[in-house]
């Protein structure tokens, strides 16, 4: 009679058994990722430990608890409802050409807003980010009586035909000095103007902005600082003090995110994936009037720049759509602060310092109504 369990089969079964046992054991170990009960280990033994490397230092983090997540990639759209725009009278530099004032209805102004921020160095003692952004604002106009736009005013012509665009790069450096003190530097270089995406302005028209803040981070829920900024946020170049104040209450519900005067918001955290904000942002730049498309050639040679500054009172809701994809929706009221046109003197901007250093008048003074505005953006947020 044939033996069912001859030695060969026994050895094969033993081998397979041995292989299976090892794999099952490995699988069981690997899957044992469930949380252990806090009772299973005496955690007090970890109270009395210090750095193995006695020379190691602690540095404060660039963030505080409860802060809204930083945006790595942002794709957004901005829409302003209708308002009136009155462009002032203007005389060319050689006094030979005059344009009289004109007014139009802006049916709406709108445009894409793209932003990118990539961490370059992210270490305990240094954080460095680089960014790029592209913003556009296109104007859809009609004559005040509701008929199709027919204007000879060069500013209205170029706004209508070319709109305004900003293309820029930025950098942010956070340098902790120790576990409580830090330096924060932000700098940007922007091309702003009525250029088209296919007709880039020369780099000599770059506008440079920067801010340096010295700050304190006394605990995990507060950081504040004081500094100085070179900014175009009120439309023209200014050097102003800045105040940083980020704070979260002990219950992680309320907080502030303030870099005054650029922006200031009160934050309400429904949960870490749903946040509400109320506050304002000061937006502005100097836009080079450079594009001759649809405007008299002469206008391009006048060395003109729009000094645009606006305050956006707003409410925002930011929430996670899925994991790290966040949607931001905002609605608010856009208040015009300045939309005047300045002529450069010898290629240099006039530095007025809010009228303290110069009372040189603008070459074109314009009036803008204040519309409601809406903004929506899809964002990839940072860890």
């Amino acid at each position, binding site marked *: 009679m044939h033996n069912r369990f001859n030695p060969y089969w026994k050895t094969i079964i033993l*081998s397979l058994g041995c292989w299976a046992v*090892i794999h099952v054991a490995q699988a069981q170990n690997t899957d044992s990722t469930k949380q252990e009960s806090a009772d299973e280990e005496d955690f007090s033994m970890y109270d009395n*430990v210090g750095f193995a*490397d006695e020379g190691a230092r602690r540095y404060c983090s660039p963030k505080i608890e409860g802060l809204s997540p930083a945006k790595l990639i942002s794709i957004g759209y901005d829409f302003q409802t209708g308002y009136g725009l009155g462009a002032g009278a203007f005389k060319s530099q050689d006094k030979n050409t005059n344009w009289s004032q004109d007014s139009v209805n802006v049916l709406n102004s709108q445009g894409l807003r793209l932003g990118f921020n990539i961490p370059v160095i992210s270490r305990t003692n240094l954080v460095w980010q680089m960014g790029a952004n592209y913003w556009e604002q296109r104007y859809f106009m009609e004559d005040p009586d509701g008929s199709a736009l027919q204007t000879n005013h060069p500013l209205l012509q170029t706004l209508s035909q070319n709109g305004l665009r900003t293309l820029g790069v930025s950098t942010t450096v956070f340098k902790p000095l120790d576990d409580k003190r830090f330096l924060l530097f932000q700098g940007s270089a922007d091309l702003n103007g009525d250029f088209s995406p296919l007709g880039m302005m020369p780099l000599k028209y770059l506008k440079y902005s920067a801010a340096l803040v010295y700050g304190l981070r006394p605990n995990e829920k507060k950081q504040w600082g004081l500094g100085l900024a070179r900014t175009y946020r009120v439309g023209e170049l200014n050097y102003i003090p800045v105040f940083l104040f980020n704070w979260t209450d002990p219950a992680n519900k309320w907080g502030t995110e303030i870099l005054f005067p650029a922006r200031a918001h009160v934050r309400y955290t429904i949960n*870490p994936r749903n946040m509400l904000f109320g506050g304002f942002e000061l937006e502005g730049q100097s836009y080079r009037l450079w594009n001759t498309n649809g405007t008299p050639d002469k206008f391009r040679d006048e060395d003109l720049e729009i000094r645009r500054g606006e305050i956006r009172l707003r409410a925002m809701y930011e929430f996670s759509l899925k994991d790290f994809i966040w949607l931001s929706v905002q609605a608010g009221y856009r208040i015009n602060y300045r939309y005047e046109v300045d002529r450069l003197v010898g290629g240099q901007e006039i530095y007025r310092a809010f009228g303290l250093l110069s009372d040189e008048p603008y070459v074109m003074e314009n009036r803008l109504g204040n519309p409601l505005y809406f903004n929506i953006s899809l964002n990839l947020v*940072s860890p």
Partner: protein
Amino acid sequence: MKKLTLFLMSLALCMQAYAFMPGDDGDRLLGVWEPSNGRARVKVEKIGSKYYGKIVWLKEPNDPKSGLPKTDINNPDANLQNVPLKGYRMLKDFVYQENNQWSEGTIYDPLNGSTYSCTIKMTDPNTLDIRGYIGVSAFGRTDVWKRLAVKK
């Protein structure tokens, strides 16, 4: 002779199974580490062939409102929101890849309830670069962790 051949085959199968387990180099990750914010201490352990890190100490162990030990209240899974943070495995499934690097793991941030892909690089025996990222490494942030030892 056939028995010997089969025995050697079975031995080879067993060795193949063990071959997936890492060498001792990866075990240099074992120990207690402190993230740069100093809010927690994390003990790295080895389970099977992989490395895991659990929270063993919190700077603020109790919830300021309730006074009770903190739990994972920000976890998107409501069933896990009562799990104590002490003992929570925030590093999971790391595999040693040579050159002082561990990868294929994830890191969990209890502050926002998010889990990120993660790689670990040991820059010196007492320092780790922990990089959490989304999709590709470029979209991430590196935190530096320091090894802790019992105070003398």
